[in-house]
C-alpha cells in the first residue's frame, strides 16, 4: 500500500463499482453476504495515537488485517540544521528531537563530540550528568504511565502521572532554568553546577516518589481492567525484536538483557549499583512492569549520585580554553543568563577575555576530522549519535538513531491480527515519541 493516495484510490474504486457492488454483495454459489474489508485512517490528529502518527488500518470488522504506519508529520530538519550551526549550538537543536528525554539527546551528542575531541568531562560533571539523566528517565516513564493510561481510558492515572512529573520538573527548573529542552549538558561537561538548594530538593523528592510509585502499583497492577487490556497484547518475541531492531523495554520484556548502561557503559555508569529489570512475557503488561521497576532503579542511582556529589568537588566544565564555554552563568528570573561579575570582567577589565569570549561564542570549538557512533540508553531504547566532522567549526553530519523510529517498524507485526483497541494498547506500550521518530 502506498502513501496518501490509496485512500482516494480505494474510495474511487468503491464509487466506480457502486451499483454493481450492491448487486454482487451476495456470493453467487452460496448466497451468503460477502464481507469486504474496510480501510480506515487513524490520525495524524487523534487523541489516542501517541502524537502525530498516522495508521492506515485495513479492518475486517474489529480485527486489524493489515496496518501501515505513516510518519513524517513532525519532520523538523534537525539534522540539516546542525550542519549550519556551531558545535555547541547543536546541543540546542538536538535536545528537541526526542522531547521527552532531552538530557539523553544532549548526552549522546556531547559524548560523541567529546570522543572526537579526545577529551573527557570532569568527574563532577559526569556525576551530575548521570543524576539528571536518571531524573529524566523517571519523568519520561511517568509520561508513559500518564498518556498510556489515558489512551486506555484511565484518566485519573494521567492526573497522577503529571502531578509526580511536576515534582521532577521543579527540580529541573531549579538546576537548568527550564522545564524542558534544557541545553544543560554541553561539550566538555555541564554548563553550570547545581544550585545551593538543589540537593535538598532532590532529597525531598526521594522521600516522596517511592510512595507514589507504590500507589501506581496498587492502582494498576492488579486492576482487572488494566490486566484485561494489557496482558497478551502487543506480543513481540525476542527474535522478532532483534530482527526489527527494537531495543529498550520492549526488548527487555522479551527476555533479552540488553541495556547500554551495562553492556557498553558511558559516563561512569559502571560504578553505580543498579539492576536492569527483565521479563519474559513479551506483552504490554510486562513492559508496564519493567518501566515501573526502572523508575525504582533510577531512584537508586539518583540517591547514589547525590551522595557522590557531597564529596566529589571540582569544576563542571573541562579546563581547556579552546573547548570550554567561556561565560560564567547563573540562573536568573528568565532562565540561565550571564553572571554579573563575569560581565564586568569582560566588558571593563580584560580585552583578551572579551576577544576570547567573542571567538568562543561565535565560532566555538574546532573538532578534528573523524566519525564516531555513540549509543546511550534512553527510556525508549538505544539512542545513537553518528557524528561526522570535517575539521571545521560546524558538524558535517549528525545522524540521530532514534529508538522510537526503529520501534515503530514493529507495529505491523504486533498489531496485525488483533483488535483495534489492542492496537492502541500495543502502541502505547512501545512508548514512541514522534519528535524522535521524525526529527
Amino acid at each position, binding site marked *: 500500500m*502506498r*502513501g*496518501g*493516495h490509496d485512500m482516494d484510490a480505494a474510495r474511487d474504486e468503491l464509487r466506480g463499482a457502486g451499483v454493481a457492488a450492491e448487486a454482487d454483495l451476495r456470493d453467487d454459489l452460496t448466497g451468503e453476504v460477502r464481507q469486504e474489508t474496510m480501510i480506515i485512517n487513524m490520525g495524524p490528529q487523534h487523541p489516542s495515537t501517541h502524537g502525530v502518527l498516522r495508521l492506515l488500518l485495513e479492518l475486517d470488522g474489529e480485527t486489524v488485517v493489515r496496518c501501515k504506519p505513516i*510518519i*513524517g508529520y513532525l*519532520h523538523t*530538519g534537525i*539534522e*540539516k*540544521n546542525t*550542519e*549550519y*550551526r*556551531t558545535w555547541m549550538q547543536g546541543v540546542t537543536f538536538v535536545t528537541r528531537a526526542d522531547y521527552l528525554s532531552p538530557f539523553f539527546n544532549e548526552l549522546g551528542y556531547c559524548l560523541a563530540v567529546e*570522543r*572526537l575531541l*579526545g577529551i573527557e568531562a570532569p568527574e563532577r560533571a559526569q556525576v551530575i550528568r548521570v543524576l539528571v539523566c536518571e531524573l529524566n528517565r523517571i519523568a519520561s516513564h511517568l509520561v508513559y504511565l500518564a498518556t498510556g493510561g489515558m489512551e486506555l481510558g484511565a484518566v485519573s492515572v494521567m492526573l497522577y502521572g503529571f502531578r509526580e512529573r511536576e515534582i521532577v520538573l521543579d527540580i529541573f527548573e531549579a538546576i537548568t532554568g527550564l522545564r524542558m529542552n534544557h541545553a544543560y549538558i554541553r561539550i566538555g561537561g555541564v554548563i553550570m553546577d547545581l544550585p545551593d538548594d538543589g540537593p535538598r530538593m532532590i532529597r525531598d523528592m526521594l522521600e516522596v516518589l517511592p510512595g507514589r510509585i507504590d500507589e501506581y502499583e496498587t492502582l494498576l497492577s492488579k486492576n482487572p481492567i488494566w490486566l484485561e487490556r494489557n496482558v497478551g497484547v502487543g506480543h513481540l518475541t525476542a527474535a522478532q525484536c*532483534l*530482527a*526489527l*531492531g527494537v531495543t529498550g523495554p520492549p526488548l527487555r520484556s522479551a527476555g*533479552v538483557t*540488553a541495556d547500554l548502561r551495562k*553492556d*557498553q557503559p558511558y559516563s561512569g555508569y559502571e560504578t553505580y549499583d543498579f539492576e536492569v529489570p527483565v521479563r519474559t512475557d513479551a506483552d504490554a503488561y510486562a513492559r508496564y512492569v519493567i518501566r515501573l521497576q526502572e523508575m525504582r532503579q533510577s531512584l537508586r542511582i539518583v540517591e547514589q549520585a547525590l551522595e557522590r556529589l557531597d564529596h566529589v568537588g571540582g569544576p563542571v566544565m573541562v579546563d581547556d580554553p579552546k573547548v570550554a564555554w567561556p561565560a560564567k552563568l547563573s540562573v536568573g528570573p528568565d532562565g540561565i543568563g550571564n553572571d554579573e561579575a563575569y560581565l564586568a570582567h569582560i566588558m571593563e577589565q580584560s580585552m583578551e577575555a572579551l576577544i576570547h569570549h*567573542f*571567538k568562543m561564542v*561565535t*565560532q566555538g570549538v574546532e573538532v578534528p576530522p*573523524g*566519525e*564516531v*557512533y555513540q*549509543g546511550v540508553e534512553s527510556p525508549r531504547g*538505544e539512542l*545513537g549519535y*553518528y557524528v*561526522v566532522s570535517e575539521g571545521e*567549526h*560546524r558538524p*558535517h*553530519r549528525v*545522524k540521530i*538513531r532514534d529508538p522510537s*523510529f*526503529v520501534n*515503530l*517498524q514493529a507495529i505491523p507485526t504486533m498489531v496485525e491480527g488483533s483488535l483495534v483497541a489492542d492496537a492502541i494498547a500495543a502502541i502505547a506500550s512501545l512508548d514512541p515519541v514522534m519528535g524522535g521518530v*521524525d*526529527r
Partner: protein
Amino acid sequence: MRSDEIAAHARRFFPDTFSARDEATVIVERERLLDALAWLRDEPELQMGFLSSLTSTDHPGSDPRFWVAYELRSMPLRHRIRVKVGLREDDPHVPSVTPLFPTANWFEREVFDLFGVVFDGHPDLTRILMPEDWEGHPLRRDEELGGVNTRYRGAFIPPVDTRGMA
C-alpha cells in the same frame, strides 16, 4: 573484544579495515556488501547480528560522493563495528540489506528520501519523512536550508546557510 582486535580479525577478509577512537570500521565495495554483513553476523568471534543504524553522508566534490554507513552491534559479545560503502555521484545504487536485517527497511527509505541513494531490492522504496510529492533530497549538501528571510527592526537577516561564520 577491543576495537583493534576486531579490526585485526576482520582485516583477514576485508583488507580495508581500520580502528580509530575505539571503533573498528570496514570499508567494502558494494558488490561484497551483503557477503560482508553476513560474514560479520556468522563469524563466531564477532557475532554482529544487530543492525543499530544505517545512514549516509554526502561529500560533494569528492569521489565517492556518498558514503553509506552500517552500524552493527553484537548483543551477546557487547561490541560494535561499522561497515561503509562508497558510492559515486552518477551511480548512487547499493543493494538493500533488508533480506538480512528487516530493521533496515525504514532506515533505507529515510536515506532514499533525504539523500537520493537508491537501494536495489527494497520492498517499498518511497519517501517516508517528506511529503509524497516533494522534489529534491533535502539533506544533500548542495540543497539549501530553506525557510524564510527574517526582518527585524529594519535590518535584514539573511537565511542561515548564506551567513558566514565570524
